[in-house]
């Protein structure tokens, strides 16, 4: 299993919930938000559309909108304000990387002659 981001410190005595993350069978606990369910099983929720890699949420209170995830049927859920449900199937890796070469170009700033930021962006 991928090493988890979140660590449970309390409230572990709850019914287990099974979910599927990127095709992998995983477990969470009833009462987990989808964000908690994903991050107790790994370190990502989704891929950034613009090339700076995976995202794993930020504000946890429904303000930053950075934790919208996709179920495998395309349904969109905000992970920090949705509860995990039995049998949920989540996809965290997009099959289309918007930053790949040949993808449509970046917007305004690039058009105005700004230096294109490297696809890797932040320090890795």
């Amino acid at each position, binding site marked *: 299993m991928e090493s988890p*981001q*979140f*660590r*449970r*410190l*309390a*409230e*572990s*005595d*709850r*019914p287990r919930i099974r979910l599927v993350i990127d095709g992998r069978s995983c477990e969470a606990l*009833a*009462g*987990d*938000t989808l964000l*908690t369910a994903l*991050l*107790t099983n790994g*370190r*990502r929720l989704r891929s*950034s*559309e*613009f*090339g*700076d*890699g*995976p*995202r*794993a*949420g*930020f*504000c*946890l*209170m*429904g*303000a*930053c*909108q*950075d934790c*919208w995830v996709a179920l495998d049927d395309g349904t*969109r859920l905000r992970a*920090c*304000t949705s*509860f995990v449900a039995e049998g949920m199937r989540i996809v965290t890796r997009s099959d289309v990387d918007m930053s790949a070469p040949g993808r449509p170009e970046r*917007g*305004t*700033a*690039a058009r*105005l*002659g*700004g*230096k294109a*930021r490297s696809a890797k*962006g*932040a*320090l*890795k």
Partner: protein
Amino acid sequence: MNDRAPVVIGAGPAGCRAAATLAAAGLAPIVLDEAPASGGQIYRRAPAGFTRHYRALYGFDAARARRLHTAFDGIQGSIDYRPDTLVWDLRRGALHCLSGGRSREVAYRDVILAPGARDRIIPFPGWTLPGIYTLGGAQIALKYQGCAIGSRIVFMGTGPLLYLVAYQYAKAGGGVAAVLDTTPFAAKRRAVPGLLSGGSTFAKGLWYVAALRARGIPVANGIRPVAAEGKDAAVAAFLYRDAAGTQRRLACDALAFGFGLSSETQLADLAEVPFAFDAVQQQFLPERDLAGRTPVRGVYLAGDGGGIAGADAAELAGERAALALLEDRGHEVGKPRLAALERALRQRAGFRAALEAAFPFPAELAAGMPDETILCRCEGVTAGEFRRAARALDADEINRAKAFSRCGMGRCQGRVCGPAAAVVLAAALDLPPERMGRLRGQPPIKPIPMAVAGTHE
């Protein structure tokens, strides 16, 4: 129209007290809240099946939280409470709310806005790496889900929340690696006389620092963030400069940071409440008086959504705004109670100003943000791209800079990047931040599904 139910938006401390006050006067308000349960952020109620006691969840505030929850539960029979409901648009006399995949139009005559606040952040290189959260976010993980955001966590930023959350993690066994405060120690010492007016709040603050040190957790002041380093696409270390200017590196698998709070003002903006720049909070805030009245008839504002004053002040403000609404509808309200509320609100405002002075927003971090830093995390726009786009087309205020750079055009509508972007733009133009204007609210104030069924009521 006199019998149209008043609407309260938000069921945090301010919204709950406003609703209770209106209910007590027999007005049966409609209470709309995005969350599944009352309490807002600070007094978030645990999901069903969780067992920790109030003391474990809310610490010193346990009794307050209990009283608020009990009070709100007690009025359920006399209010129309709609949780899991997002108010996404609002105009004179009508609002639109989304619940269960359905959008409804709700007509209103009077509305009390109590939308609260969110963390205020300044981007630094690497801040979008998995494992990096706001201080509020870290607190929610612990309080609401019983989770630590990582195993070896750096807490960074400034403000009372920095120490509170770090302490809560330390107490819960959460692997606190260090607490790094951007405010120099000297600034805090200078602010002590003002902070003393805060009484027990100030004492609590000192207590947290002492408690952290007692556990051997390093607490540093006057630091400057440099960058977060990633490994395997998640945060692995945090680089910063200490007060002496020496660069240091802390291994970590999570970071929580923040520099105070920002008011949520989108609904007030849509309601056409005029805004003014608040020098203390360094933010444009909707205009309201001490009673919670805005210049727009029928629109009231209570709690942190109109300016950061904390949970206790929010409860007082919620009650006061509801009483203002009642007064304006011709009800009799007790003058002594009004005076007591306003006296208490004034006193808390003074303490709040002192807190801002003790934990100043380090605007210079924004002004000096390296060009390669992602400024807008929704759209992936770097500070350099933002500066270049603003200059290329002579953007002289923040909405133009947004249009030319895309910074602020993403899903969060500038909630995260807005405060820092204004400072970056002001520094690039060599003008004060208040000249940059503010990002205008546009509906929907949060994303809504395209496939929404709509009705009117």
